């Protein structure tokens, strides 16, 4: 049994990262995730064989991550929406170089400078690549502080396993809320050895290098295809979701993170009125839980995707449903959190 404590979401991520063996953090302050940066400073600056650097910018931070991660250690950076945009070039380089790292995005309202309220409008950026080139991040979407902990630890394992950056896609609400969390004993996971690629100095072997380019298009195409194979494997093996009340549901809500939490209250409210609402909550946004959505589409003819955006994940829901059922959408933007009542009201429109 692990110990239970009351923690703020942002700090819980930091503690989880440290317990997952992350000793290197590079970041830049931005609301609503600054507590995470501060937590890492407080802990790592007092640890041996560890480093915390407050970088001059998010751009510098992600490039510090690139350097540190290329030596084979576990490294993390975190930010919120505008700062994550600044990191995209670096994330693209790291992904092409096939180096593992963890990036946390506690989303806020956008576009532009937006505001500092919770949002989910970076979905496209997170799951479709985000920077230039053909690539994906492994994207995990926690919906409680406990999941921030568990998924942060999983993110390090998945990044190492697939030598690809993993992203925790949370939001300002999850980052700021306090909940009881337990740091559970985790089973030991077999992970690939890094000694075949990490930079250590070339003692006893040929020199090696980490790069993200090749001017020969034939080689670069092959490189892309190899990276793509990893995404196929991710889609086969790493899809995670939570399914609630799918049997005999009159309508199924698809929502992730904070919105999925709210939708669970909606389901309880609906039940009292004799309405049967189900929920599919993607836990991995990439790989996306297409199969459960597709199989549900055969039984339930109505979907309602709810997001704190003006309709991003709904496109992936439509692709998974593939015309087999009706896909509706409800979203709030700019940092507004939908209430259980307004989601229920919206659901009733389609029943």
């Amino acid at each position: 049994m692990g110990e239970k404590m009351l923690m703020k979401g942002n700090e819980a991520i930091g503690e989880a990262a440290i317990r997952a063996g992350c000793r290197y953090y590079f970041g830049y302050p931005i609301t609503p995730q600054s507590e995470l940066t501060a937590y890492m400073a407080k802990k790592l600056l007092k640890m041996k064989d560890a480093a915390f650097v407050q970088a001059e910018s998010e751009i510098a931070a992600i490039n510090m991550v690139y350097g540190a991660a290329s030596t084979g250690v576990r490294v993390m950076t975190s930010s919120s929406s505008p700062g994550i945009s600044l990191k995209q070039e670096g994330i693209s380089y790291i992904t092409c170089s096939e180096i593992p790292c963890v990036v946390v995005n506690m989303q806020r309202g956008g576009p532009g400078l937006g505001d500092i309220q919770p949002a989910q409008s970076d979905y496209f950026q997170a799951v479709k690549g985000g920077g230039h080139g053909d690539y994906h991040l492994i994207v995990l979407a926690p919906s409680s502080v406990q999941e921030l902990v568990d998924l942060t630890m999983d993110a390090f394992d998945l990044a190492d396993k697939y030598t690809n950056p993993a992203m925790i896609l949370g939001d300002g609400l999850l980052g700021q809320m306090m909940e009881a969390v337990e740091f559970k004993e985790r089973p030991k996971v077999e992970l690939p050895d890094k000694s075949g690629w990490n930079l250590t100095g070339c003692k006893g072997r040929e020199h090696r290098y980490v790069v993200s380019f090749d001017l020969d298009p034939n080689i670069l195409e092959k490189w892309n295809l190899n990276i793509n194979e990893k995404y196929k494997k991710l889609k086969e093996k790493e899809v995670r979701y939570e399914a609630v009340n799918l049997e005999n549901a009159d309508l199924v809500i698809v929502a992730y993170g904070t919105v999925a939490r709210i939708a669970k209250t909606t389901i309880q409210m609906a039940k009292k009125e004799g309405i049967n609402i189900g929920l599919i909550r993607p836990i991995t946004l990439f790989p996306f839980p297409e199969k459960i959505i597709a199989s549900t589409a055969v039984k339930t003819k109505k979907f309602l995707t709810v997001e704190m955006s003006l309709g991003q994940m709904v496109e992936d829901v439509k692709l998974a449903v593939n015309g087999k059922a009706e896909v509706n959408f409800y979203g709030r933007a700019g940092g507004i959190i939908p209430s259980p009542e307004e989601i229920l009201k919206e659901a009733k429109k389609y029943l």
Partner: protein
Amino acid sequence: MKKVFGRPESLTEVPFTYCPGCHHGIAHRLVAEVLDEFKVRENTIGVCPVGCSVFAYLFFNVDMICAAHGRAPATATGIKRVKPDSIVFTYQGDGDLASIGTAEIVHAANRGENITVIFINNAIYGMTGGQMAPTTLVGQVTQTSPYGRDPKTMGYPIKMAEMLSTLKRAAYISRVALNKPANIIKAKKSIKKAFQVQLDKKGFSMVEILSTCPTNWGLSPIEASKWLEENMIPYFPLGEFRTPEEVA
């Protein structure tokens, strides 16, 4: 027979891709000789930039990473913070270091990152075909300053060595040139000092190397060396701007 001259072990046998008369090859060799002399080749991680020396990872016989344009000091920071006992150097051009990467170089120097920066200043963007660099001289004609660099709208060439010397944690800053043997010998000594500063963990070190770009200057190799002597050195004076004795 005694071997009196050979390729430094810190260089691979891959032929350089540089143009005839370009000084990158000399700069590479000097860095490699210094790594050999300190016997640190197997404990070195180099960071190459975007630009003509993007292929430096093939030439240096040490572990290397190719950073994004301008970000080499950040990438080197990440490496050095994990491996404080490794020798970490960046190799950057003027577009990389003095334009797109100004924030990274200033803050790496200000933090006193214990890395060595080799800064090639040839007053022009080479790989993209001869555009104006932050170090392009006043009046110098380039693809993007076709009527000459006009300081009224394009500013004056940035003196990076002097600028970084204002920072307290910059331990060693010098400017050298590779236009003639006497200067090459001085450059080697300076590069050696810079790496010595890193070995002694005294903080940030940078050697700015004035270099030629005959291709994009439109000059022969000999004319280019002469142009460097007559135009660059008067504006970018050679010498040491910070030495470890000045470090608090």
